[in-house]
């Protein structure tokens, strides 16, 4: 029986690598191919021809497929052997889920208007503009000329449309997934009605000064699991 030289084996190795890169079958695939080449050479073929026959008989796709399949089998049994082994992939999936969710459309991570604006009153303690007492400001006030288009900051559903002239004025509340709600107040006109579903960026109202307000502005709140949070914290994440 013929035996390949070291140089020839190197050639075979390179040819396999060219076909399917670094394979898990490694030496096994190399030995198999070398055996096949030796057998073809025994039939009287030259090394070059024998090598090309051996590789094309196996087939490029087949080589890749075998490697992949063997890899999958190995991984499966490895995990099966040690029950804790499942934790890594589960954690990886969990992490992926979290990452995907950060970019999800149900978080209010954009500004409530496409117009440039100035924040006239931020979230937190402030002096009430009417009675001058220090109170908690539950949202932010954005200076917007009356009639400015106000858009939903996340996908969701219209929960409330209220007119409260002594307080929030015309107000729209949206309910989103993951415990989020957003409130848009002091509007001049609501463009949606209760239980409409809305897409992020969709027009929902026009701004105004319809309640307890000193000048046209949008009062915007973000509620997470029932708790008011600072809306500006969510602004930078997306437009």
């Amino acid at each position, binding site marked *: 029986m013929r*035996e*390949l*030289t*070291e140089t020839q*084996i190197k050639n075979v190795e390179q040819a396999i690598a060219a076909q399917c890169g670094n394979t898990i*079958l490694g*030496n*096994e*695939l*190399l*030995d*198999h191919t*070398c*055996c*096949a080449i030796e*057998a073809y050479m025994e039939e009287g073929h030259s090394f070059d021809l024998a090598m090309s026959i051996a590789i094309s008989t*196996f087939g490029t796709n*087949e*080589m890749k*497929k*075998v490697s992949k*399949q*063997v890899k999958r*089998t*190995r991984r*499966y*049994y*490895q995990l099966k052997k040690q029950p804790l082994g499942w934790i890594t992939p589960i954690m990886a999936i969990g992490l992926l889920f979290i990452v995907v969710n950060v970019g999800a459309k149900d978080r209010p991570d954009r500004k409530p208007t496409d117009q440039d604006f100035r924040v006239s009153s931020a979230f937190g303690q402030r002096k009430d503009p009417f009675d001058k007492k220090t109170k908690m400001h539950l949202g932010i006030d954005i200076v917007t000329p009356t009639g400015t288009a106000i858009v939903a900051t996340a996908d969701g559903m219209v929960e409330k449309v209220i007119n409260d002239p002594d307080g929030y004025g015309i107000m729209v509340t949206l309910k989103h997934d993951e415990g989020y709600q957003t409130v848009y107040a002091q509007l001049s006109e609501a463009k949606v009605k209760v239980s409409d579903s809305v897409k992020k960026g969709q027009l929902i109202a026009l701004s105004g000064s319809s309640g307890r307000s000193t000048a046209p502005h949008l009062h915007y709140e973000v509620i997470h699991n029932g708790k008011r949070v600072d809306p500006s914290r969510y602004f930078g994440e997306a437009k």
Partner: protein
Amino acid sequence: MYSKELLKGTLQTIVLKLLAENGRMYGYEITQKVKEQTEGKIQLTEGALYPALHKLEAEGLLVTETVNIGKRIRKYYSLTPKGDVQTASKLEEFSSFISTMQFLLNPKTS
């Protein structure tokens, strides 16, 4: 050559049986042995053989031995005690299957 579907269910039995008869064998040797013994009627493709070998190994039916044969490395497979038991039961099942099939195909004999 028989159809892939037909071979799929018998591949493990063939491999186990060959190893039971020959002790340790390597991949290429198995393909050649099958070809020789069946006069070319059954030709195992590498694509079917290697995943099957690795699966049997992972299941604990085969052990491997990696040997330096001079200029390259060869991986030999052989049966574990668990593999011996499995081979016997697989062969028994298969012979019974064949006689059932015969019965099904030639119901008039007997």
